[in-house]
């Protein structure tokens, strides 16, 4: 097992560096691991991803040294006013694609002084921009910091890049349409009360269209739904919800089942849906989402 470098840093850095806006100044990258030139350039390009100005510091190879050596060097470099003074990146391990890189802040939001945060290499440039314009705070990045290499080795941190998707059971997302000018926000809350606390990919229901203004709103829904499925691939192709009454709490919503092959690439996608292949049934709004989930999971039959 390779020796872990000493990553300790002073708690504070000279404050004279911290005045003014530094947006646009290139971010410096350093190496504590022993990279070959090609490997180092590969990492720099990966971080920059053709979007950000990320450069090697004039001296960037600190292989075998402590992080403190980089810190001391960067303070001198920052005096030149070319590089971003308070944010820089350090590759601690050659296995950066798995273990991430270290973002160092010399003035994290004015409260915590000097600090480090391990994050994915592809996220680090974006994080620096967000910190620079104060769109996000240091603590917010620390909230989702990658586990340290030591904790992973000891089995404390799990697999760093374990896909969240692997943990999630398959789920369905149902499109919501209205043909009666119903309040879509209210419908959304009624259908899925906790939706605003979910990641978008976890939504059970998703706004798909307000057809109220069309001469034939229901006809538009039938025509439009397969087309929406082409654009928003997460939507359930056959099952969706239509609020055909303005007061959904009192009158419920329509559960809709369109029998078609679900082929969103067909040329006649706007002509697939019609009254012949689409069934509806009325349902209390509070039960609509769970009912459709059970139907989609084949735990319940469609009842006309």
């Amino acid at each position: 097992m390779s020796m872990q470098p000493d990553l300790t840093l002073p708690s504070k850095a000279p404050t004279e560096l911290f005045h003014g806006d530094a947006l646009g100044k290139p971010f410096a990258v350093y190496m504590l691991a022993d990279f070959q030139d090609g490997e180092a350039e590969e990492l720099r390009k990966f971080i920059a991803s053709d979007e950000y100005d990320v450069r090697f510091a004039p001296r960037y190879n600190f292989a075998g040294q402590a992080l403190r050596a980089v810190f001391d060097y960067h303070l001198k470099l920052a005096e030149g006013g070319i590089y971003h003074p308070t944010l820089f990146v350090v590759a601690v391990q050659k296995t950066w694609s798995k273990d991430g890189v270290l973002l160092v802040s010399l003035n994290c939001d004015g409260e915590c002084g000097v600090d480090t945060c391990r994050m994915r290499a592809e996220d680090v440039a974006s994080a620096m921009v967000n910190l620079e314009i104060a769109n996000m705070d240091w603590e917010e990045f620390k909230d989702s910091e990658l586990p340290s290499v030591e904790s992973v080795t000891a089995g404390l941190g799990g697999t760093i890049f374990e896909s969240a998707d692997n943990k999630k059971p398959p789920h369905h997302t149902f499109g919501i349409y209205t043909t009666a000018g119903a309040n879509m926000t209210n419908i959304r809350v009624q259908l899925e009360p906790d939706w605003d606390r979910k990641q978008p990919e976890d939504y059970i229901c998703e706004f798909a269209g307000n057809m109220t203004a069309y001469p034939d709103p229901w006809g538009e829904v039938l025509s439009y739904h397969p087309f929406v499925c082409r654009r928003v691939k997460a939507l359930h192709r056959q099952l969706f919800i239509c609020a055909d009454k303005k007061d959904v709490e009192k009158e419920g919503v329509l559960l809709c089942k369109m029998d078609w092959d679900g082929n969103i690439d067909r040329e006649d996608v706007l002509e697939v849906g019609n009254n012949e292949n689409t069934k509806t049934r009325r349902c209390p709004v509070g039960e609509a989402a769970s009912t459709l989930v059970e139907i989609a999971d084949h735990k319940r039959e469609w009842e006309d």
Partner: protein
Amino acid sequence: MTWTIKEICTNMCWGAYCTKGPRFGVTFNWDKADKTTKRRRRRSAGCAPNPNRCSTKKNYPKGHSCDEYPFASVKEADQGGQVNRCVPADQNSRQGNLIGKYYQSSCGGNPCQFIVGFGNPNSAGVKYCSAFQDPKTMCVPDGNEFKGNNPDVQPPNKRDLDQVRGYLYMTERGTEVSFDHDLEPGTIIHSVRAINETLFDETLKLKRRDDYDYYDDSDNDDEDDVDDPNLEVVEDKIAYKIV
């Protein structure tokens, strides 16, 4: 993950059309404020000190971040009364990238004035971006909109709501976009858009006030699932006013 900033746009539109005064129009000034000033703005917006209400330390689900409007980087945040919303952190990060890119490219790294508009305001998953058309009905707080440290409330009286204004336009590329300014057909738009973003994603549009450059992230035709897409600048024009 899908490249969207729907929750971000929802928050911006609440601040633009729904919150009770001060309501924030769409003209902003990037003033290159120092860190202390931006920090103060984050605090007055309710997103600082940390941990803020969107943190796991405050029992909010992991992966969320506090988004404030107006941005902490603009002078208009100094008037206070900003709104904030807990949004997926990746959306907040994308917005930050867009703003930072705009400041560097369109503003040339110098203080500038710009106008924010909202593309595809009726798109799926976005709230409040069409609220200028019917604020009384559409400005219904969902519990996640805060003003400072308290849940925001719907503007209570008709007089206040009557002050909400906005116009919906169609661009020559076929994107609906709303501004609170009365723009002429032919106004040039420079959009910064995510390559491969879905048609129904909400868009963020920024317009230079002085030379009518626009900046947005916007839609594209295919492929929902794109990680870290590159952004491209696309020229567009206001074709006509819809509403």
